[in-house]
């Protein structure tokens, strides 16, 4: 993309804080498609041509993926914090637990929810590619898909966590789960202290994507009265 600075809709008047007289770059793809772009297009067109699926199914699946964000995972975590029975069911079968809350699994994967405790810290990675609990978290961050994280998370997890600002004391066991086949993982972080009076919704707003991957804890700082 060449148009990062000009991606607003310019049909309406607005204020850039200065005289708006510079020419606009056209929003278009000007680079030639790469090898994998061409291959993806070719395979997609062949599949459509042979009626294995239609263009609307592709569009629909993109909509499905776009509807998944870390806010879903945060709701699951908050529910587990406030409802002990739900937490138990979620830890027994992560997929069924999420489905209870209406989060569907469209991709035949199973989900194991890994509970962080004062004795155990969980971290998730996919060393082979980018397996990620997409039904509950959406798309993975770029660093999750890149080789430095993928190779180092299983070799020196404590050093990787330190780089995220997370210090795990020596008496806490680190468990790294490598998702490679049909099972995906979601970390159930520890509920931070001082949150006893928060509502489920307020609790969910504290839970971040990175906490559910296991690279940071969930933090809570009381607002000054």
């Amino acid at each position, binding site marked *: 993309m060449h148009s990062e600075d000009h991606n607003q809709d310019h049909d309406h008047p607005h204020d850039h804080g200065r005289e708006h007289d510079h020419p606009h770059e056209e929003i278009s793809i000007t680079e030639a498609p790469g090898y994998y772009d061409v291959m993806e297009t070719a395979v997609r067109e062949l599949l459509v041509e042979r009626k294995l699926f239609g263009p609307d199914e592709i569009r629909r699946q993109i909509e499905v993926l776009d509807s998944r964000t870390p806010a879903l995972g945060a709701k699951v975590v908050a529910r587990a914090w406030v409802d002990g029975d739900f937490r138990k069911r979620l830890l027994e079968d992560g997929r069924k637990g999420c489905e209870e809350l209406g989060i569907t699994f469209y991709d035949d994967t*199973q989900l194991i929810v890994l509970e962080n405790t004062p004795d155990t810290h969980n971290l998730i990675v996919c060393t082979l590619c980018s397996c990620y609990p997409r039904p509950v978290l959406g798309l993975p961050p770029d660093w999750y898909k890149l080789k430095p994280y993928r190779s180092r998370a299983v070799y*020196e997890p404590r050093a990787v966590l330190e780089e995220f600002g997370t210090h795990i004391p020596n008496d*806490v066991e680190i468990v790294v*789960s*490598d998702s490679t*086949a*049909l099972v995906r993982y979601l970390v159930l972080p520890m509920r931070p202290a001082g949150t006893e009076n928060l509502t489920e919704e307020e609790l969910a707003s504290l839970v971040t994507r990175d906490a559910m991957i296991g690279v940071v804890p969930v933090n809570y700082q009381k607002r000054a009265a």
Partner: protein
Amino acid sequence: MTSQSIAETVVPALGEVPIFVVGERVRTGTRFPVGHYRLPTYLRGKLGVVERVIPTMAVDNEEEGYGRNAGSKGHYYRIAIPMSEIWTDYKGQASDGLRIEVFENWLERI
């Protein structure tokens, strides 16, 4: 009939009962076929313990990937492997460990 006695009358299909049980010690396979395989090479030939049996049977996605599977299913197992078993120079606590789901045909009983 209680659920226990019902279960006694049901004959499971071949392969339906998991081969390994929780707590069993296993070794991951040491073969190195060329292609798309889901047991990472850094975890081949390692000693571990079955921590969990994944209840839902699934296709062998390696065979499936090559169009040779014909839909047959098997079990995946969550295997616990100590970091010190994987890396001789591991810097961390002795209790630190790795977990991975492994399809039954990559596991050997020891």
